[in-house]
């Protein structure tokens, strides 16, 4: 297993290299110029050109790319054109909020979506099933920002139960940390919950037709034990796959959610960097996201062995 994991990690290197080349080339040919943004609206074209030169943006593509790759190989993601801060430090500042949001959303999804999917499968064709699947369609259909605004209006402005915006680090207490994440996690989790609930239902329906489930019922096992111990475990592989793939959804959704709830995470950093053409930051974040995605896929594969002992690498 360990050698498998190591081989997979080594295999990520060419993937990362291709991503790096792709991202760098895309940004190079994309319109826009950070020097224009820095110089401000009143700046003369000469000032803009001087700033471009000082940033090294006037150098040929290969020189810029070579110098960037050289730095990456030395573990240096570069320095933000705008803030003059190391990209790694900026990512470090933003990692906590995004990671917190994703973890809370993930937990919320598992706690809500899996039981809903199980119950829907158990009561397939009934009113309960239809209601749950109706909610799933609703969750799919509502954009994150609409859910976000609705939640903020009801639970923050009207009921005054939770804050509208912001992020408090875990170091300042569990509840201050959690209260800032509840509404964003629900908003971000809606689509995810809908997706996982539907997949859970589909996977469970198949498993519930199996002979060993009938045997378990014949032996007089309780409904809960059959559903959540015997059936769910055997339906877990597709569910784990979807949860893992859904992390990409979360990364995308975090961009909107962090803007709506003013959470200082990587999503907002990404948008800010793109709008300003802060190339080193964009490149650093895309590399990070690519790495996370590759890593998540690896974790999914490893998790298969935990839920299904028949799978071995």
């Amino acid at each position: 297993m360990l050698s498998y994991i190591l081989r997979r990690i080594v295999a990520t290197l060419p993937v990362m290299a291709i991503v790096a080349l792709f991202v760098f080339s895309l940004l190079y040919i994309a319109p826009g110029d950070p020097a224009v943004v820095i110089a401000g609206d009143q700046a003369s074209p000469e000032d803009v050109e001087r700033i471009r030169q000082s940033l090294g943006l006037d150098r040929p593509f290969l020189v810029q790319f070579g110098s960037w790759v050289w730095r990456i190989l030395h573990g240096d993601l570069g320095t933000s054109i705008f803030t003059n801060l190391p990209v790694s430090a900026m990512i470090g500042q933003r990692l906590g909020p995004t990671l917190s949001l994703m973890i809370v959303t993930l937990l919320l999804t598992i706690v809500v979506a899996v039981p809903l999917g199980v119950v829907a499968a158990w009561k397939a064709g009934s009113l309960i099933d239809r209601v749950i699947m109706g909610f799933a369609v609703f969750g799919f259909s509502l954009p994150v920002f609409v859910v976000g605004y609705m939640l903020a209006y009801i639970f923050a402005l009207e009921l005054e139960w939770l804050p509208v915006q912001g992020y408090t680090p875990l170091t300042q207490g569990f509840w201050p940390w959690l209260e800032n994440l509840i509404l964003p996690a629900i908003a971000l989790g809606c689509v995810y919950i809908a997706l996982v609930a539907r997949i859970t239902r589909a996977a469970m329906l198949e498993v519930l037709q199996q002979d060993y489930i009938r045997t378990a019922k014949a032996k007089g096992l309780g409904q809960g034990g059959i559903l959540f111990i015997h059936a769910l475990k055997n339906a877990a592989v597709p569910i784990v796959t979807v949860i893992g793939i859904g992390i990409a959804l979360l990364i995308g959704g975090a961009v909107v959610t962090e803007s709506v709830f003013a959470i200082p995470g990587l999503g907002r950093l990404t948008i800010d960097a793109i709008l300003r053409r802060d190339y080193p930051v964009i490149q650093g974040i895309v590399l990070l996201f690519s790495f996370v995605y590759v890593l998540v896929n690896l974790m999914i594969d490893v998790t298969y062995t935990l839920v299904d002992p028949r799978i071995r690498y």
Partner: protein
Amino acid sequence: MDRRTVLKGLAGAGGLALTGGLSAPAIAQGAAARTLRFVPQANLANFDPIWGTQYVVRNAAAMVWDTLYGIDSSFQPQRQMVESEEVTDDGTTWTFKLRSGLKFHDGAPVLSKDVVASLTRWAARDPMGLMIKALQQELTAVDDRTFKWVLKQPYPKMLYALGKNNSPCAFIMPERIAQTDPFKQISEYVGSGPLKFAKSEWVPGAKAVFEKFTDYVPRQEKPSWLAGGKQVMVDRVEWVIMPDPATAAAALQNGEIDWWENPIADLVPVLKKNKNISVDIGDPLGNIGSFRMNFLYPPFNDVKARRAVLMALSQEDYMRAIVGDDNSLWKPLPGYFTPDTPLYTEVGGEILKGKRDLDAAKKLLAESGYSGQPVTCLVAQDQPITKAMGDVTADLLKKLGMNVDFVATDWGTVGSRRAQKTPPGQGGWNMFHTWHAGADCVNPAPYTAIRANGDKAWFGWPTSAGTEKEVTSWFEAKNLDEEKAAIGRLNKAAIDDVVYAPTGFFLSYTAWRKNVSGVTKGPLPLFWGVSKSA
């Protein structure tokens, strides 16, 4: 590796990431009332007011760095860090003496050598500074508190240049910082103003913190814009960056922030209904909407085509698209200078007044020889103001019978593409939309957009000999009457040649919680004199 080992490892890694590196200041409950939480107009992405001249940087810098002079609400430069000044009768030698007791935030005294280095860096980037630099014979420190600026010929607007609030302002920094190349960013933020920048708490795009500088010696005069006594009444000012206006509105209503610099017009009615919130015009100098036409290529290389557009455009259409139905937020602007300021004029502005004459405009356009070629119109969709104006312009051009190539893009792309002098079909353009802060349009000194010196002018590269002649007349004017006369002639010449198309004058609101007092109107948010009760 078994299941338990994997799960323990994951839990450990997650916990570490959530708690590590996330330190943030713990503010005691009692200190909350001493902390003013402010939502600025934009993200503070860099903090060098000479290198980056965006207004949000200027606004933050005005807290951290002081200036030698400050422009007050009557547009007069008043002494700020300077105690006294002398100018020789021929107007070529200025000698300045600094106030005693001035300190930088690292405790070092503010000396003449710091001022000389700061002014040298500023003069390399600022339009007025560049003019002074061109006349400069020497700029030297005479002693620790005295410095001298010797010019080859008089520069009557010297004190205005040193105190103006247009970006870049002549902020005073320690010599070692001010010696940085003006085209490279500083990395140390040691200020001379009433608040210190807490670099360790800066999260670009999310938060910037400023702490009261207890050793700052304010002047005794009443504060007025950037002049007078800058008494800071709170311990901390926290800038909370909120990209989403609806979130900022909700946070203000919920008491999570104290002051929102520029609420969008759509949300103001909701804020006005809240009994805990005050809403008022923030910057009385407002903004001037504009679109610029490219003088280098047809059809707008012909003044008749430019005048045809001006003749047809309705400023009310543009302003309603920007501010909605609130009539207190806009004014028609038959000219180029900021309304309600000393040099405001409507001389020559008849073409922008009265009923719009589309037929006459079409006739004039035909006389220009326009024959249906595409007009490339750049519109930044990520800026609500330019998007609104762009939609109105597209409609206007179509009504005139023009073939519109509407390029909907983002501000970063417009900023880059507008600098292209290539023909419109080859990466260039015919027109783009923007707006100018009213503070930049009170006189020609900071007003880059009004200059019409062809290749050296701002984007669109307008040529208007009459305009340029009157800019020089204004700089040479010896009193307000002469200045007003020059500006009247300038306005007429600029409108005759259509240096750019003004789409109207608009204002915006600012909003704050009622437990905050001392918020005043000004060209930038002024934090001195602002206090907060629990």
